[in-house]
């Protein structure tokens, strides 16, 4: 019974708590050319993601504002840190890998891991503890789904997860 803290620390690592408490890139980008709103109606998590994407489709800047649980805020904060210099195809690979981690799909993880840098893998793995908390997966993936919508030229610009 006394391993309860260890068990919870698997999810609430210091890095996550730090990003949750002091989110990086927590600001609006007035000149953003991609923007989307993400909302989790069940728990009220809400965030606006701002991106500036250059003519070659590379993300120049990424930032967000919003409110939510430690998991969604930390996920958004860490996501904005690794987006700079990536294009839509690379973002998709990051998301596939991250989603595989969160849902513990080992095949997806193996298939997507080889395309990513060690640095990105290490950052994304910080949130992998969420796989033991199935109802919290949507918190961790909300920023990523919002990102997909922001980058999709036909996207709804508004995502809701259940």
């Amino acid at each position, binding site marked *: 019974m006394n391993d309860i*803290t260890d068990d919870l620390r698997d999810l609430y690592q210091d890095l996550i708590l730090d990003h949750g408490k002091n989110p990086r890139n927590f600001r609006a980008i007035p000149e953003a050319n991609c923007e989307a709103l993400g909302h989790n109606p069940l728990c009220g998590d809400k965030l606006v993601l701002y991106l500036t994407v250059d003519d070659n489709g590379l993300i120049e800047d990424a930032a967000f504002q919003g409110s939510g649980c430690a998991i969604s805020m930390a996920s958004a904060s860490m996501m904005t840190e690794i987006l700079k210099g990536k294009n839509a195809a690379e973002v998709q690979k990051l998301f596939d890998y991250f989603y595989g981690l969160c849902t513990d799909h080992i095949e997806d993880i193996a298939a997507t891991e080889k395309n990513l840098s060690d640095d990105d893998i290490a950052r994304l793995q910080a949130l992998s503890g969420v796989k033991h908390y199935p109802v919290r997966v949507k918190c961790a993936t909300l920023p990523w789904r919002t990102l997909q919508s922001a980058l999709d030229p036909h996207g709804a610009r508004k995502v809701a997860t259940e």
Partner: protein
Amino acid sequence: MKKNESPHVGKLAAADFPALNQQIHGYPLVYFDNGASAQKPCVVLEAMQRFYESDYANIHRGVHELSMRATDQYEAVRETVRQFINARHADEIVFTKGATEAINLVAATWGRKFLKPGDEVLITELEHHSNIVPWQLLQEQIGLVLRVAPITPEGDVPLESVRAALSPRTKLVSVAHVSNALGTVLPVREIAQLAHAQNVPVLIDGCQAVSHMPVDVQSLDADFYAFSAHKLYGPTGIGVLYGKQEILKTMPPYQGGGDMIDSVSFKETIYKPPPYRFEAGTPPIAEVIGLGAAIEYVRAIGMDVIAQHEASLLAYATERLCAFNDLRIVGTAPNKASIMSFVMERAHPHDIGTILDRQGIAIRAGHHCAQPVMEVMDIPATARVSFGLYNTTEEIDALVRGLEKVQEIFG
């Protein structure tokens, strides 16, 4: 409750509920999510099982023995419900699939018949979505106006607030008896007096009240009263709409189908009188039997005994949680029942919910299907603890230890 034992609450009652006797993540389950739905005592499960095993058939149809037994038991529950809420007549009790359907039924039948464009339906800011959205649907369909009486920062609904929102155009007042998000007990009897003074009927959403306090619809002078069985230790899929006989009689049918007609021809169909007019099709018969068993269970204990027990739990929990300097109770109206919502400075309600769950404590985190309340209180969500008759002060101590763990993790 086993035979020959006196009725009870707290730890002794917990033994009547098989689901409570289990470990969650290695800890004994502490079930504090009764506001969302309550666990079921053996007597409810057994009554439904026994009914399916020996008396099951469709009701109001057959000349055969089983159909008669099923019909008798089903109709006997109508009488049980009548006594439980002290309605005047058993035919004022309409079975619905829950409180949500009960309110929708009033909107779809009484509302469509009697409300005209520009008429006002008055609700309060603390309503559950199920007492907001049915009226918004009518707003779109017939152009009625939804008026909202504001709540105080404490989450209270002063009578003055309702008085000020009433207008000559008000045609219905529809309010919660107890707020599901804050626990506020509304002055529904006084609200009904105000409304009746200008001949306006009153619907009371009693979902969070019937399992926690004695309810007497005649004394409240409610025109409609709605509740669900599943929060009252009964099964899901069944609820009750009480309506005064003279009002139900004026209402057109809700759904068309079998069991709600006297005769059908292609020239003319004649509907049955209430309550059958509103119960088209084969109802959830076993669930009605289960509701009857649940009501008998709580009546044997005594609603006043349950109310007293839960009031002492609420007082104890309020005292223990007030000792946390980084915790704020949301909803501090003087008259509250069984529900405590709170927020913590450094931890989001959802994170509180996860950390408590890992210690076997089930609470609700979120907006509780009452988003306007969250907006008024200027918070995205709360953590909510809601008590039932089987909860104990020891479980509140476990909650306190759980919240200390939240503090430890979130610093």
